């Protein structure tokens, strides 16, 4: 009923991702936002609306932290909204930016994601305890790694996947991160290093997981006519999708992320994509644990169920492979300031599609890219599809 509007990404920026950064959350927001604006050739006064994404208040340690961060996010006296879907927030915030413009309500929108996990003392792991049901789960002393290990183990069991296949993801992503100037944990490691690393919660080992981090990332979105004025090579947001599964995660089969499939279907439909493995040239898939990259590739229908490990071992997902996955280095390599990590993936696709990814550039002039994030109690998928 309304004319559908095109939405462009015209600038991106990010801070270093590190275990501890000196900046306050507000200052991190400002640094990333300022860079994105500079890249877009815009000033704050040109911005009509601001959208912020940030994960639990229990990390930064401020109730209603969206409100607290507002001035750093450039929201002073502007329409400003915070969206929040756990770990899926980073990519979802870009989706929220999309509807600010696509609705015809605004022509320019600054989209920022921030996380300062180091404020949580003595360890950010404490905050994760608070994401569980207080009656059914918290009394058991549940930790985040417990439940991801349950999911990983189920996934391995159903498909008969070996740990050495999964470890290949950590090797690839940490190596890719060597080329990322913001990366927290870039490294040249081997499958043996992963298999020999400390067992945290079998089958999860130290090198299977991403770190906790501080950081921020931002993009600038505009309407089509603004984008044409600002740049010769805008990147268009062509599809957005998101979906949530039931709270009762022990009532579902964890071997397959159905919710990611639902989110992807929504985005593919909007973008007119019928054959994802053929039509997606580069993908940033959420990888807080190495198995999640594989799990999500399957949910995104970039391959068949159970097939992702094989593709990874064969090198298909390397930067120069047929289906490059996480050329940035992902969360395993670049770091995982939750919401900012998802936004980093959106930034990476922007840079890849513009041919500006430098040493990380995937060959072959990629035209269509996808970023995805995952969150909540193994129940949230958010997807964005961009085209140059």
């Amino acid at each position: 009923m309304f004319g559908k509007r095109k939405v462009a990404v015209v600038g991106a920026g990010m801070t270093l991702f590190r275990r501890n950064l000196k900046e306050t959350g507000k200052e991190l927001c400002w640094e990333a936002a300022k860079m994105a604006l500079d890249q877009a050739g815009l000033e704050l006064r040109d911005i009509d609306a601001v959208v912020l994404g940030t994960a639990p208040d229990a990390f930064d340690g401020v109730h209603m932290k969206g409100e607290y961060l507002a001035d750093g996010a450039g929201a002073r006296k502007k329409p400003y909204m915070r969206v929040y879907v756990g770990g899926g927030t980073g990519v979802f915030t870009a989706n929220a930016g999309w509807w600010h413009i696509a609705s015809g309500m605004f022509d320019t929108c600054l989209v920022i994601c921030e996380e300062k996990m180091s404020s949580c003392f003595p360890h950010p792991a404490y905050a994760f305890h608070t994401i569980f049901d207080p009656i059914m789960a918290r009394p058991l002393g549940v930790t985040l790694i417990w439940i991801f290990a349950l999911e990983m183990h189920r996934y391995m069991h159903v498909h008969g996947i070996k740990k050495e296949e999964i470890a290949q993801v950590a090797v690839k992503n940490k190596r890719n991160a060597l080329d990322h100037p913001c990366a927290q944990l870039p490294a040249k490691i081997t499958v043996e290093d992963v298999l020999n690393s400390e067992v945290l919660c079998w089958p999860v080992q130290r090198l299977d997981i991403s770190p906790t981090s501080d950081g921020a990332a931002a993009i600038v979105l505009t309407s089509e006519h603004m984008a044409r004025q600002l740049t010769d090579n805008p990147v268009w947001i062509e599809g957005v999708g998101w979906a949530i599964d039931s709270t009762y995660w022990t009532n579902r089969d964890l071997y397959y992320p159905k919710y990611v499939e639902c989110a992807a279907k929504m985005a593919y439909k909007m973008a007119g994509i019928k054959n994802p493995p053929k039509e997606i040239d580069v993908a940033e898939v959420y990888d807080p644990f190495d198995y999640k990259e594989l799990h999500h590739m399957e949910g995104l229908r970039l391959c068949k169920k159970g097939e992702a490990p094989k593709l990874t071992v064969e090198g298909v997902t390397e930067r120069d492979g047929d289906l490059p996955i996480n050329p940035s280095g992902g969360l395993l390599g670049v770091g995982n300031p939750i919401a900012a990590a998802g936004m980093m993936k959106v930034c990476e696709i922007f840079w890849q599609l513009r041919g500006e990814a430098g040493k990380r550039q995937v060959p072959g002039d990629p035209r269509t890219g996808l970023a995805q994030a995952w969150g909540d109690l193994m129940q949230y998928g958010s997807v964005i599809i961009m085209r140059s």
Partner: protein
Amino acid sequence: MSEKIKEYPGVRIKTADLRAGLVPLVKYKPEAKYAWSAGIAMSRFLEELKNGRILASVCKKCGRIAVPPRVFCEFCFKPIDEYTYVKDTGKINTYSVSFIAADASRVKEPTIVAVIELDGASPGMGILHKIGEIDWKEVKFGMRVKAVWKPPEQREGAITDILYFKPIKEGEM
């Protein structure tokens, strides 16, 4: 990266400096305490745990017997029809073995955690709990297990009224 970008902002703090107290910090302990109303379904569930029974909810439309119980069927979006009990036995759907505590420190004895599909509930209806009385290397997918309850006088109407689930040996039950 734009190759145009020369430098990325962010001032790193070294962990050693933090530990040595060289970084000025403001410390704070928030007051955030709650008394969550358990509500209709979970109040009943907790009460029944005290009696050594596991309560589930039944939706007659889709035929699903769900645990923990809820007042609605989330798929049919209607109130549930009745409550029922499920058995305190079941099989391991998936498991993991934790060598670290909540604060990420190492523990001596690993904790075995599992999703246990309970007998009498619809297929795939599991709960999260611990597994005991077995070496972690012996645990298998699909293994049959049974709840080990606290003595009745020590129960308080909590999920921890079940201490853990233990393997059912051949011939038992």
